């Protein structure tokens, strides 16, 4: 897997990155830009917007490398969080923009967002590979991961969205992640 090759070199990469080495940037970009772009694209569902965001994300990463603490987690995890947070913030800003008079997100809007996200066909052929692993994931668990991870939904928002009790959402998230953990282990 692509993941394994980067494991070995991550500490070396970090050392070079803290020196703002240009070669290290090439490495960083070549290794992680498809993953970050994929995640951002999945969140915002717009090629152009995703590209703008990936630019912002890499600039953010480059400027805030000193804030990254290797003891608290892996570099890729940190980068994913930066990418995800940036994209979700941008998505929310966009969503609230047209209805500036009504700042509070209504259920109706939420339904609209979710419909838009989930009724859209998977746009990228690269995603075919997902089926191999993810098809083994129970659909209701996958749905919840996508809603929370790529949609930026809170537990409450997800519970409302799926018409499920909050406790069930929490249990299902845990079950989904545990299953994912087992799937990647094998």
């Amino acid at each position, binding site marked *: 897997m692509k993941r394994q090759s980067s494991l070995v070199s991550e500490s070396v990469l970090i050392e070079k990155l803290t020196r703002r080495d240009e070669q290290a940037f090439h490495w960083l970009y070549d290794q992680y830009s498809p993953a970050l772009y994929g995640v951002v694209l999945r969140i915002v569902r717009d090629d152009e917007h995703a*590209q703008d965001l990936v*630019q912002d994300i890499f600039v953010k990463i480059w400027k805030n490398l000193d804030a990254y603490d290797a003891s608290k987690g892996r570099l890729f995890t940190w980068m994913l969080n930066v990418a995800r947070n940036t994209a*979700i913030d941008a998505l929310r800003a966009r969503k609230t923009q047209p209805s500036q008079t009504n700042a509070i997100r209504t259920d109706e809007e939420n339904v609209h967002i979710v419909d838009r996200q989930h009724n859209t066909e998977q746009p990228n052929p690269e995603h075919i590979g997902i089926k191999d692993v993810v098809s083994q994931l129970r659909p209701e668990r996958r749905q919840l991961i996508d809603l929370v991870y790529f949609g930026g939904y809170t537990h409450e928002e997800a519970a409302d969205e799926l018409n499920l009790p909050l406790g069930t959402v929490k249990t299902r998230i845990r079950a989904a992640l545990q299953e994912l953990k087992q799937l990647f282990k094998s």
Partner: protein
Amino acid sequence: MNIPEYIASGILESYVMGAVSDQERREVNCLSSIYPEVQQELDQLSLSIENYALLHSVEPPAELKSKIMAQLTFEKAAEPIIRPMPVDMSIDRPTFKTTWIVAASIGLLLLAFSFYLLSQLRTNQDTVAQLQSSNSVLQKEVSQLKDNQSESEQALALFRQHGTRTLELKGNEKAPNGDMLVFWNAKTRQVAVEVRSLPHLNPDQQYQLWSLVGGKPVDAGVFDAGDTTKLLQQLNRPIDRADAFAVTVEKRGGSPSPTLSTLLAMTTVDA
């Protein structure tokens, strides 16, 4: 706190999904740094979500990279690596230069020194030639002095011999300034002359000394008169008897009988 229960609560899963409150996030960060088992579970869940995210990878457009790079500032890491190389070169260069300069200097010094030696050699050769010439001059002088000394010794030996007489001959009207001495020893039969002043002769002429015995002239030898003539000229004719001595001018080598018309001087020998 019951750690297995905390792990099983599902908060770590929500944490990696980014679906926790700020307070919950701080709580997880804190506990994971204290409890290795919390950190371990968190790492595994993070890896799972990473892998899940990777499954959604999409290659971004090629121009995106250059767009991003235009916004970033890079530490010029390539230069400090390359820089030492020309520095090393420049270190090598002066060394090479210095070596060359030193070698050239030594070469120039050797050249100058050889020129100096050559000039010294020429000076010495000149000095040797001068010394040689002066030496030969000295040797000539020495040999001349030796000759003079042997003459003087001969003269002295002649004078010391018992019975040597000294006769003074004065020039007649043909040679008014004529003045010479004749040394004669009857026992050893030796005769010598010392010309003090006599007229110069033609190259084909010589003076001839005659001893007169009972009115008859006997050849007593020829001699020269001039600047180059020796102080004392020994004549090679044995004379044991003489009543008088006379000097005539004859052809070079002498004549068997004297030419009376050329008689210049004459003196009698006292008995």
